[in-house]
């Protein structure tokens, strides 16, 4: 499954895996995010067994017609302001999609799945 962009020169096809990887990379770079929560068990376990470093964990790409929705499930660090961390994730994901893939996301939904206390 992929997102297709048609322009004068032809068609650009970007697979969902690529998008998920870019999004996952952007999210894990964000301050306050200490982990990603898997929502696609089979895909993520598969990657884990194969020993692949997957940035796709916790990322789900949905496409309805022209509208692209990205869902990111994160684990935040205890003691940070969760709403601000989430907003930063949304901003960063949206920006990365635009600057790296030229894709405009209609919505970036952040699901805070967990909170982790990081070594005090």
């Amino acid at each position: 499954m992929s997102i297709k962009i048609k322009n004068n020169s032809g068609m650009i096809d970007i697979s969902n895996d690529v998008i998920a990887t870019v999004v996952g990379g952007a999210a894990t770079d964000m301050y306050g995010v200490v982990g990603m929560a898997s929502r696609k068990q089979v895909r993520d376990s598969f990657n884990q067994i194969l020993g692949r470093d997957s940035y796709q964990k916790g990322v789900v790409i949905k496409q309805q017609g022209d509208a692209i929705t990205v869902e990111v499930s994160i684990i935040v660090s205890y003691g940070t302001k969760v709403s601000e961390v989430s907003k930063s994730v949304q901003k960063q994901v949206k920006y990365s999609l635009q600057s790296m893939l030229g894709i405009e996301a209609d919505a970036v939904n952040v699901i805070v799945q967990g909170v982790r206390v990081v070594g005090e």
Partner: protein
Amino acid sequence: MSVTEITKLEFDQMVQAAAVKLNQKAEFINSLNVFPVPDGDTGTNMSMSMASGAKYEAEVESDAVSDLSAALAKGLLMGARGNSGVILSQIFRGFAKGSEGVNTYDAKRFVDAYANGAQTAYKSVMKPTEGTILTVVRESAQAGLDLVKAGETDLVVIMEKIVDAADAALAKTPDLLPVLKEVGVVDSGGQGLVFVLHAFYEALTGQVLEEDAKLDLAQMDEMINAEHHQSAQGKLDPADIKYGYCTEIMVRIGRGNSVTQAFDYDTFYNHLAELGDSLLVINDDEIVKVHVHTEHPDQVLNWGLQFGDLRKTKVDNMRWQQESIMDQDEPVAEPSDQQPSTRR
């Protein structure tokens, strides 16, 4: 002068000074913001976060710095805005944790608390990015620790070294983070923390650090770089550029034969403001530097000549520059009636 103890009195002053300084410098910090997203809000975010922290800290009745720092941390947490605000809140969260049970700071306790702040900051992110505020806090904390280990007890000396280390780390950030070098600025979050540390030093000693007293010319270059980067990012259509000539002049105040009036900042600025936009005017006693986007570079140069001679001028045609950028990026559009090229 030397200070060996930080009590409620000093701590209150330090925190207030930090909030005031971030407020003053917010616009400048905003202009440096290119990482991670160039949205120009780092300064505002850090300023508002610190204002919240200072408010909570000021309301505490207790004399113990453990309570004061805890309130500062809580205020920062509640009021944290943006990525930079969150990191600042984490630094002071660690700082507060490292201050537990402490009534007043001596050199060791203060530096330990600060170092704890640095450690906590690093823990809340999976992939700490160097060349950011994290680098600045780490290296400045290390400098403090080294001094304490060597037996230093004067907090003025220690704070000065911390400030020096922070300044050095900030200057290095373009070498660690490529996008900063590309744009020609230092890291905005790091700059914010540097200002906080400067404020701490100034509060402890009662002296104002000269370099902060007014924007200097190097900082102006950074602001110009960042601004041009932002408009390049927007992929402007050359036809949309309203004021086409990026004009910079450096005037030696009062020198030369063309002088007709004495330099007054407001008069100088206001006239230029009518000639275009993206106006920046910085001066010291001897020179004034101007950056403006205008359709009439000749008027800018003439106006400068009223006040002195021109040491340097630069006029760039931004429409031509934008055309060159766009030519590099996009494939040339094929006219519809052209024969399809044969495959090889």
